[in-house]
């Protein structure tokens, strides 16, 4: 399952990063992207950042997803599938 939530890098150590996925902290490997740095937004697949995306589109996507989530919450909707 592809999760397309833009995640912000908050820490980099060796080739691993700590990312913020809309408020949830996770780790991902940076081996598959060129010079990702703290503050960059990345798309993560199976524990690896696979693409950097520019901040403007990342924030736009996050805003859309939050709007959808707010609607869901108001409806008492279902949870997300775990991403693989």
């Amino acid at each position, binding site marked *: *399952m*592809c999760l397309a939530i833009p995640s912000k890098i908050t820490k980099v150590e060796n080739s691993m990063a700590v990312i913020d996925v809309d408020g949830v902290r996770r780790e991902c490997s940076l*081996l*598959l992207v060129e010079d990702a740095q703290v503050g960059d937004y990345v*798309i993560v697949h*199976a524990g690896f950042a696979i*693409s950097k995306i520019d901040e403007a589109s990342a924030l736009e996507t996050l805003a859309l*997803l939050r709007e*959808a989530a707010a609607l*869901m919450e108001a409806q008492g909707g279902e949870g997300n599938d775990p991403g693989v």
Partner: protein
Amino acid sequence: MAIKHSEEYRDADLARPLAEKIRRTSRRSIRLMEVCGTHTVSIFRSGIRSMLPTTVSLLSGPGCPVCVTDQAEIDAFIELARQKDVILATFGDLMRVPGSTSSLQRERAEGRDIRMVYSTVDALTIARTHPGQQVVFLGVGFETTAPTIAAAILTAAQSRLENFSVISAHKTVPQALEALMALDGVHIDGFMLPGHVSVIIGLNAYRPFFDRYRIPCVVAGFEPSDILQAIASMVEQIESGAPRLENAYPRAVTSQGNLKAQKILAEVFEPADACWRGIGLIPLSGLRIRQAYAVYDAGKRFALKLPEARPPKGCACGEILTGKKTPPEPECALYKKVCTPMDPVGPCMVSSEGTCAAYYRYYYEQRTTRND
């Protein structure tokens, strides 16, 4: 607040005008295929089918990695689980897929060491902390997942981690598109191309396929509005008779793709023939571990021989993956009667991305809320 996809999203400001545009422009009856399990789920969840005119049919193609995994490969995974001192590491969706005589879940219940991991990084950690055992990662997936597995093999090689290996059952998308077009009884007017596979391989990777078949091919993102945008574009291309290879997910996909990931992939893997469930052998549609990294190839390390395997009797997964059938009865006689997500017969009912599972979960409620 956690981010979720939304049923209500269909009414979002972005989606409605796109759906209207499709209804306005679509004249011919067309069949569009998505080749990505995440697209399949997003289409069902957001109710996109109910927004489309009857002229536009959406087919779910071979885009769920677990669903296209050949029966013989599933049997080989089970065979490996039974070897002494082996720990299998796998993504969760494979656990319940029925092999010819067992499943990984059943093997685990019988005491085999099978662990679900989120990423190959976790599998490497298991190998480091269990030096006396062999850790084998089940490499199933497309071009998005394959580089993460290649990176793990390179890491193992650099750190001389000797008890880690991979069984490579990876598949590649452009070759599958070719094979689908050549199949008897399959009719497809346009392809919605997978978002994250395309992040890795880039738009140009589809160019040879597009030049040969000249049908609309549009890379799409995963939000309902992304998907509707791709459909609108394919409808417009078909109506105007001017097919294009188009990138409708430019915030993540480029023409070249992710060159670093491609380099790592090519360092470890080389193209090889592969068997797809429902399609059969497709030349050069798989990835085999190169000779230089042969010590990390579990197939070689354990001298695996694949016995003749038969897909489950009565299961129409093969026809469903190629768009010849859609699951609600009577097209698959087992659907909902014998085959359910709790007790699946075929992989398309097991994986959360499988077409049968998606129909099971969303189809009936959508029929009752259809508004077109």
